[in-house]
């Protein structure tokens, strides 16, 4: 953004008409363009956000829906005192790390392959994007049915081709959590693949030719050309991916049917969702939402600073 965007302020001789964008100063014009979006954002983001802050200091629940009052930090203390928060937080970290690890490794590997000259490349690429295109709800419910103990395709495969005992995917905590992760890996890698492919295509071919002249091996070319040039493209995508995965209620909620078995498969967001909408603990859920938000905010600041991608974000 080196050049000055305010060139529009240069006075120009022109007749001003009433209600014409000409008669307005550039900033007024900018504000008018922003007003519709600003009103919507204020009504459904800013106001609810502060409402949530107030709720988090209150005792509101289904029982105290009309006669709620402020109770200070009690809900926050409640959050941090319970053992559940720490177990669920740990599960959230595992969930996020495992998912992003596989999304990026599978996505980048496939992108590297698809970036070569291959027969039928376009068709394969289209097919590989499919999991991203299918609505998440359907992905989750479909995988849930495939994990069914007796009739699900996965156990039928295991029994028929691997000759192993069927796995009780949805009935046991670890298995159910793995089922959620498998589902989410399946649906998440095409995003990383697409971003990586775009990044690879923008790397100038001359760099590889120059590396060839210098006698670089494929491995050296990857680490000294591909990797450094792909990194700036991937870092924002990974940051977004981490936030999205951390905050993904859909998959956990629908694959494990609301945390089954016995609330053992929750990550933080599904746990809050349950506290708010199944257990009607509004004040507690609001406080826990604030804690999750703080965790993500701190993570993003640290991550973006460490990777120095913050300049790229402006």
């Amino acid at each position, binding site marked *: *953004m080196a*050049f000055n*965007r305010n*060139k*529009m302020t240069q006075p*120009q001789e*022109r007749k001003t008409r009433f209600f*014409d964008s*000409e008669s307005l100063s*550039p*900033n007024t*014009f900018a*504000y008018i*363009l922003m007003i*519709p*979006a600003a009103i*919507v954002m204020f*009504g*459904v*983001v800013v106001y*609810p*956000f502060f409402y*949530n802050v107030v*709720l988090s200091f209150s005792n509101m629940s289904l029982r105290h829906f009309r006669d709620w009052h402020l109770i200070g930090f009690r809900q926050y203390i409640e959050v941090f005192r319970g053992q559940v928060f720490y177990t669920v937080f740990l599960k959230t970290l595992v969930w996020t790390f495992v998912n992003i690890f596989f999304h990026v490794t*599978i996505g980048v590997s496939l992108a590297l392959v*698809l970036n*070569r000259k*291959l027969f039928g490349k376009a068709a394969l690429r*289209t*097919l*590989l*994007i*499919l999991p991203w*295109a*299918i*609505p998440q709800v*359907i*992905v989750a*419910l479909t995988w*849930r049915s495939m994990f069914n103990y*007796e*009739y699900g*395709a996965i156990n039928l495969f295991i029994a028929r081709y691997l000759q192993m005992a069927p796995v009780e995917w949805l009935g046991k905590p670890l298995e159910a959590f793995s089922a959620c992760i498998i589902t989410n890996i*399946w649906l998440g890698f095409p995003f990383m693949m*697409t971003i990586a492919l*775009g990044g690879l295509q*923008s790397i100038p071919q001359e760099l590889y030719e120059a590396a060839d002249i210098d006698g670089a091996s494929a491995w050296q070319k990857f680490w000294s050309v591909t990797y450094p040039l792909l990194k700036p493209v991937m870092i*924002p*995508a990974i940051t977004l991916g981490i936030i999205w995965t951390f*905050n993904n*209620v859909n998959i956990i*909620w629908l694959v494990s049917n609301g945390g089954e078995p016995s609330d053992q498969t929750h990550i*933080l*967001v599904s746990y*809050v*969702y349950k506290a*708010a909408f199944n257990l009607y603990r509004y004040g507690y859920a*609001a406080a826990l*939402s604030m804690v999750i*938000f703080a965790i993500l905010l701190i993570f993003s600041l640290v991550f973006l600073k460490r990777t120095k991608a913050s300049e790229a974000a402006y």
Partner: protein
Amino acid sequence: MSHKAKTQNLKLRILNLVLYFLLIGFTLAVLYPIVNVFSISLRPGNRLLSTSLRIIPDGATFHAYKELFTQTQFLLWFWNSSIIAATVTVTGVALASTAGYAFSRFNFYGKKSAMVGLLVTQMFPPTMLLLPMYIMLLKLHLINSYLGIIVIYTSTALPFCVWQMKGYYDTIPFSLEESARIDGSTRWGAFTKIVLPLAAPALVITALFSFMTAWAEYVVAAQVLQDTSLFTLPLGLKQFEASMSTQWGLYAAGSLIISIPAVALFLFLSRWLISGLTLGSVKG
């Protein structure tokens, strides 16, 4: 051909072969769940629970599709989802294209903090806004109305869309508007006649993203819409899925039909998607 070149050629061929197997393996893993749903949708009602892995089941029939359209509220749900998604898409594009333009072209007070603020909203856990919105809707008696859900969906998609539009406008040279204005065009005219057409790829992504946000959303809809006649498609599907032994076929047929518009749109637009997303992420 020298010996060395020959071995290198052979190596390359083997490598390509291995990579092909890898690609095809992944493609099969991607396709299988879709094939599986398709095969279940063809099962006759008395063989829904079968342990067969055949793709075309014995006695395959389109009965589930027929039942879906004639004996359930599927068409109504389809209509409801279409109305909601269309409204969200139009509003989202209108708001994001104007706000993104303001962010890209003008320096005004509070611009930087507004941009950062938009980014920060992406870190909100879904319940953070849903819970207060839900309580507000309860108090305003807007539960079971589309207004509430349309507003929530629009605001969910908006921050990403504004950033996306801003990033794309940044790549369009400012000189184009300047020359249009020298030719006597107004500011609004320069924006709508010169810049917007050039920003078509970004508009397309904004539209797609808004549509996808609204078309098959479950978590918000499950709280805000409780009357079955107001259900959107995901809520209806979940109902089928819950009684798997009797309605598995309906679920399978329904989910294929719901996916088709989303997937078709997505694939049709995917070439713009790749360029738009990477531009967005490189240029921010």
